[in-house]
C-alpha cells in the first residue's frame, strides 16, 4: 500500500510523538549502557533483574496503549483486554514449549511435560505448527485478532454499547479463564506453560537474551505507539472520536460506525497480543491468571491513572502503577494494597484527567472532557 506510507509516517511530524519516541529511545539507551558498561555492584549499575523488570513494564505499557486506543478514542471500555494479551502470550508460550523438544524432564521428543504425566497419547491438533516460529508469531496476531473480530462483529453489529459492552467483554475473559483452567483444554491448566528453554535457538536465561528481549519490547512499544498515533491522527481517528461523542450523527454522515469500531478493536486486540507474546519469555510463565477479570480492570486503571485519550498517558500510567507494585510488595509486603488502593482512589478523585492532565505539554486538541456528560459516562 503506497498510500499507507504517508498516513503511517504522519505522526513522525508531530511534536508529541517525537518527544515520546525520543524519551523512549533515550531510556532504552541509558538502561543498555548502565547494564553493559558499568560493573555489577556499581551504585548506578542496572542489573539484569532490573532490565527484565523494565521489559515487563514495557509490555504492560504496550498493552495499556492498546486499551487507550479503544477506550480513549472509541469510547469502548473493554474490561476484557487481558484476554487478548493472554492469547498472544499463549501463542508464544506454545512455541516456546515446542522449542523445549526432548529436554523436558521426561525427555519426550514431542509432548510437553504436563501432557506426558497426564499421559496424553498425542499432541492435540491445535498444538501443531507451533514448532515453527513464523506460524507461532502469526498466531500471536491472529488468535487475538480473530477473537476480537468475531466478538466485535457480534457486539457492534447489534449495537451493544456502554456498560453492557464492558460487562460482556468481562464475561468473555472470565469464560476464557475458566476454560484455560480446565486441564482437558491441553494448555497446562492452572500451571500454564513454563520452564522455557530457548527462543529462536537463543538461550533464554543469558543476560544478552534478556537485554535483547527488553530492547525488542521497547521497539515494539515505539512501533505500536506510532501506529496508534497514526490511526488517531488520521481521518479515521477523527471518525472514531466522532463516534465516541455522537454515534448517531456519525451514522447520518454515512459512516458505517460498527465497522470502524470493529477495525480499531481488532487492531487494539492484536497489539495486546504482541504485548503478551513479548511478556511471556521475560516472565517465564503464562497461565490462566492473565485472563482474570481483575487483571483487565487493572489495565484500565493504568490508563485512567495515566490519562485516557492521550496514548502517552497510558504508557506513564502502566509504568507508574507497576513500578509502585514492585516497590511496595517488597518494601511494605503487609500494607502495599493500602498504598495501591489509596493511589487509585486519590488519582481518580483528584486528577480526573490522570497524570497526563498534570503534564505541562498538551496535544493541540485538548483531551475531551466529554467523560463528564452522562451519556458518555456510562460507556
Amino acid at each position, binding site marked *: 500500500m503506497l498510500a499507507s506510507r*504517508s498516513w503511517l509516517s504522519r505522526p513522525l511530524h508531530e511534536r508529541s510523538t517525537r518527544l515520546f519516541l525520543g524519551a523512549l529511545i533515550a531510556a532504552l539507551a541509558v538502561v543498555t549502557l548502565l547494564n553493559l558498561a558499568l560493573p555489577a555492584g556499581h551504585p548506578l549499575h542496572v542489573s539484569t533483574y532490573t532490565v527484565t523488570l523494565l521489559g515487563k513494564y514495557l509490555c504492560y505499557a504496550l498493552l495499556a496503549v492498546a486499551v487507550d486506543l479503544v477506550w480513549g478514542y472509541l469510547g469502548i471500555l473493554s474490561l476484557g483486554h487481558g484476554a487478548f494479551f493472554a492469547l498472544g502470550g499463549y501463542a508464544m508460550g506454545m512455541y516456546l514449549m515446542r522449542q523445549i523438544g526432548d529436554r523436558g524432564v521426561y525427555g519426550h521428543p514431542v509432548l510437553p511435560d504436563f501432557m506426558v504425566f497426564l499421559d496424553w497419547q498425542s499432541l492435540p491438533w491445535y498444538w501443531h505448527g507451533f514448532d515453527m516460529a513464523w506460524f507461532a508469531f502469526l498466531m500471536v496476531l491472529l488468535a487475538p485478532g480473530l477473537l476480537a473480530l468475531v466478538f466485535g462483529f457480534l457486539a457492534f453489529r447489534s449495537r451493544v454499547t456502554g456498560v453492557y459492552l464492558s460487562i460482556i467483554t468481562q464475561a468473555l475473559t472470565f469464560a476464557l479463564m475458566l476454560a484455560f483452567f480446565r486441564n482437558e483444554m491441553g494448555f497446562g491448566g492452572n500451571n500454564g506453560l513454563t520452564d522455557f528453554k530457548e527462543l529462536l535457538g537463543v538461550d533464554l536465561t543469558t543476560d544478552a537474551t534478556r537485554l535483547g528481549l527488553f530492547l525488542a519490547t521497547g521497539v515494539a512499544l515505539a512501533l505500536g505507539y506510532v501506529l496508534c498515533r497514526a490511526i488517531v491522527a488520521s*481521518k479515521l481517528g477523527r*471518525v472514531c472520536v466522532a463516534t465516541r461523542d455522537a454515534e448517531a450523527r456519525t451514522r447520518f454522515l*454515512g459512516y458505517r460506525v460498527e465497522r470502524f469500531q*470493529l477495525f480499531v478493536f481488532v487492531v487494539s486486540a492484536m497489539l495486546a497480543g504482541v504485548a503478551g507474546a513479548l511478556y511471556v519469555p521475560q516472565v517465564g510463565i503464562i497461565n490462566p491468571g492473565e485472563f482474570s477479570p481483575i487483571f483487565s480492570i487493572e489495565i484500565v486503571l493504568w490508563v485512567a491513572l495515566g490519562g485516557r485519550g492521550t496514548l502517552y498517558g497510558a504508557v506513564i500510567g502502566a509504568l507508574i502503577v507497576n513500578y509502585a507494585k514492585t516497590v511496595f510488595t517488597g518494601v511494605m509486603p503487609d500494607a502495599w494494597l493500602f498504598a495501591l488502593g489509596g493511589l487509585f482512589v486519590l488519582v481518580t478523585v483528584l486528577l480526573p484527567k490522570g497524570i497526563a492532565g498534570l503534564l505541562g505539554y498538551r496535544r493541540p*486538541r485538548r483531551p475531551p472532557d466529554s467523560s463528564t456528560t452522562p451519556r458518555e459516562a456510562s460507556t
Partner: protein
Amino acid sequence: MNVLKSLADRDRVFDFLVPVESPVDVRHGPILYLEDVTVSFDGFRAIERLNLTIDDGELRCIIGPNGAGKTTMMDIITGKTRPDAGRVWFGSRHDLLTMNEPEIASLGIGRKFQKPTTFEALTVFENLELAMAADKRILPTLTARTTGEVRSRIEEVMTTIGLVELRHRPAGILSHGQKQWLEIGMLLMQRPRLLLVDEPVAGMTEQEMERTAELLTGLAGQQSVVVVEHDMGFVRSIARTVTVLHQGSVLAEGRMDQVSLDPRVVEVYLGAEADEEVA
C-alpha cells in the same frame, strides 16, 4: 497467507454491505414518497397512515403541534426508526425501509437534528471534513489526505456559515446558534439531494434567522429541502408549500396563507401556537 490479505484490506471483507452508489431516479415524479406509514411506540400511535410526497428541488415546511410526529417522520426517513406499516421511497428506485442510516445517508439524504449535534471534541474544520462526501469505507478513510480541493470546499462552506475565523476551535465551545450553523454546514458538505432540517433556527438571533432563511431558499432548486419548524414567522418567510401534521397524519397541505385560514388548522395548531407565543 490469504488470511493475512483479508486482514490487510478488511473493508473488502464486507463487500456485500457496500452500498450500490446509483443516482436517484426522479424521472417519474417525486424525490421522496411516503405512503400509509404507521408507527406506534408501545400502544401510542406516533404516526398514523401518513402520506407525503416531496418533489425534486422543492422546499417544504412541515408544522404541527408538539407530538404531531414531525421528528418521528424524520427518524423513519433516515432509517433510525422502522415503521410498522407503509412504504417509503427515495426517488423511484430506492426503498428506504430496506436500508440503514449510513446507506440512506450515502444516497444523499442529509439530516439536521432538533438538538444541534456536532462533534464537540473536534474542530469546526474537522467537523466539516468528516461530513464531506467521500469514500467512507475504512481504508480510504484511514489513508485519506486533506487535498487542496478539499480545503477550498471546506473554506467555501465555512464562509457560507460564517465560521471561518473559528475553524480551529473545538465545536464544543461554539454558541448554540453557531452549532446550528455548523450542523447545517455539515449537511452542505454532504452534497445531499434531500435535506431534512429539524428546527434550524431555534436559539438564533433575528439576523441569524434571516441568513438561515436565505441559505435554505438558496438551496432549494438544486436540492430538495424539508424544514420542520415551530417559529411561524420563520416559516412564513420561507414557506412555499406547508404541510400541517396532527396526531401523526396530514391535517392540511397547501400554501401558507390557505393553510393558516383552514379552520381545523387554526383550532389544533395556531390556537396552540398562540398559547406558545403567550408563554
